[in-house]
């Protein structure tokens, strides 16, 4: 809270510390929208820029992280709008050109993409760069219990989906 207050009062260094603290979760939030590592980092940095300019309009400093996450989601959505859909190399490769490992990763990514939005965001925050429950809780404004519940549900759904591809054995 002190950092947030100091940043709101104009201390750029404090804002820099906040950026460092929330960079990883913000990249994960953006990745959830963009599915592209580089663009996700760009979106997080863009979110910081938008956040800085709007910082003095933040009404509840205690909700800084969820507020920044909203900005980050919007920045990512804007990037999607700007560049309708990235056709990745995978899209253009014929199936037989795909290495087996890449295919498995793709299957998992597809399964994650099919998760309901609320479960998908928590999953990406948790696994994209190993955000702690505390970090996820701060960014999403949810209790740790809720996060744990969502992660459990997400993993159940993923396991169910992946079993169809023979990637996993019995139910979790």
């Amino acid at each position: 809270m002190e950092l947030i207050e100091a940043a709101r009062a104009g201390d750029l260094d404090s804002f820099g510390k906040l950026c460092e603290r929330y960079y990883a979760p913000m990249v994960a939030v953006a990745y959830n929208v963009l599915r592209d590592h580089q663009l996700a980092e760009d979106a997080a940095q863009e979110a910081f820029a938008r956040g800085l300019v709007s910082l003095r309009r933040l009404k509840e400093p205690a909700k800084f992280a969820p507020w920044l996450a909203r900005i980050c989601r919007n920045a990512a959505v804007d990037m999607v709008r700007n560049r309708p859909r990235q056709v990745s190399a995978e899209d253009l490769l014929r199936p037989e050109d795909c290495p087996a490992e890449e295919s498995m990763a793709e299957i998992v990514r597809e399964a994650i993409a099919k998760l309901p939005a609320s479960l998908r965001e928590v999953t990406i925050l948790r696994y994209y760069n190993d955000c702690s429950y505390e970090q996820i809780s701060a960014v999403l404004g949810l209790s740790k219990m809720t996060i744990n519940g969502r992660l459990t549900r997400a993993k159940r759904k993923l396991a169910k989906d992946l079993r169809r591809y023979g990637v996993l054995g019995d139910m979790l």
Partner: protein
Amino acid sequence: MKADDNSKKLDGLIRSAIGRGSLRFDFQPWQRDHQGQIDEFKSQAVAGSDSGASAPGLARRIMIARLSKLVVAAMILVAVLIGVSRFTGSFDGTTAAYAKVTEAVRNVPWMHIRYTGYDLDKQGNKVHAEGELDSEIWYSFNAQIVIQRFFFSGSIIYYDYAKQQVHTYNPHSKRIVLSALSDNRLPVQADSPWSWVQRNIRAMTPCGGEVTRRAGQYHGQDVEVFEIAATRPGMAAICGKIFADRTTFLPLAEERTYIATDTGKTQTVETGTFDYPEHGPTDIYALGLSRDTPTVNSLPLPPWWEISSAYESHRSKVPAERYIAVVTRQMHIGGDPVDTVDVFYVDGLHYREERHFVFHTGFIGEQWQQQAGEVGTTFDSIWKWSRAYKAYGDISVRLLEENHYYESRRGQNGSWSATERTLGDRELTRDDFWNMCPVFKLGWPDIWGEAEVIQDDYARENHLIRLEVQRGVFYLNPDRDYLCQRRIIHPDDRTEDVTEFGQTDDGRWYPRKVKDGGLTHTIYLETHPELPEGIFDPNRLPRAAR
């Protein structure tokens, strides 16, 4: 046990599929890339702006950052002057006394003002490092020179009005850029330093401002004290004092305090001390720059912030009250398939956007062959195709109405689903809609950070203006509404070229074809079209069959 193993295996699979490992954020390069926003953030403190107005555009940000420094630095002296000049009669002898101050200032060879200051948080603590806001200004009214130096960033701007030139030193690129200074292009359309500062202030005088004069002391010296107070709607109130020598009538110092209108608390305090040397910096090198500093001559072009201002004014101009924009994205692989079709409908404050994915991933060739004939290559054919929702891939239709968002989406299983949300407390405007349209982003992309005007052969041969920023290079076409004709994006130097141009009936230019590596965007912009009935009606969005 098996479930436990599977759980671990699942963790591993997810991590290997999407895991990125630890990420580090380096604030220093971020600051360099976002100087415009940082300046704006700082200027908010100076201005005390706490309004909920929408974020200003790039050039406005640049101008706010630049002009706020110009304005605040030169403000008090002339504010008093203007304030007094608005009174026709003498009151309290102020008019006559200040005329002497004005005359004295005009007659000195050089006037040098050293500024320092600080911002305060709500508890009254200083929030800037020592010296962070320090700057200086040199004026020579006879030589028609104005120089600004910002000590913290190291940037220097040397205006030579007699030669109609400006030298700008950029501490990041460590280069000097020489640009043209033209009367009608200066941000405030001034033709001399004096009228420049006057015009800066003129915008502020409608806010009122009462000038008073009294005898006082400054550092033990008897002085004339001129005071002015002005309240600017939505911004901080300003209280300023200028202390002038009672014999020479030359200003000795000024003090300026910005007070938050909502809390009544002081936000910013700035002071300037004056001196009047016989000689001043005769060129930019006299301010400590090495004569070996690389210099780029961009004459006869104006400095980048003036170009950005023109760019922004064209960029933000909505093409019409009512328009349809259709944007196709074509991939240059076998058969040159169109991947997506975006359709934007705008009528005043009504907005609808559609995205049609023409085929499913993995069925490009087969499905494009089936669609190509119907999609066609004209506005009419593509638009008609979009109205029939014939895409094989996903389709989304979104409406924005006041602060409501409606979306209908057709997924891979072919059924429609609808969502509705409230967007918060800000109502959308025509400008917002234009900002969301890809025509805007393809034709007039964001130009972030400090820029320099550095021409190359391509720019010269095509009569373009080349702006170089840290994240890329932009070639603007001043003959076509400052449209960005070429963009090179660092670090991979991806090039985006406008290869064809279109023009609306009203004469507005727009990019007709934009080539971006292996992709081509084609834009069809129809202004003042007849719109289908109910196109903005949320109750008539495509929905699942009941």
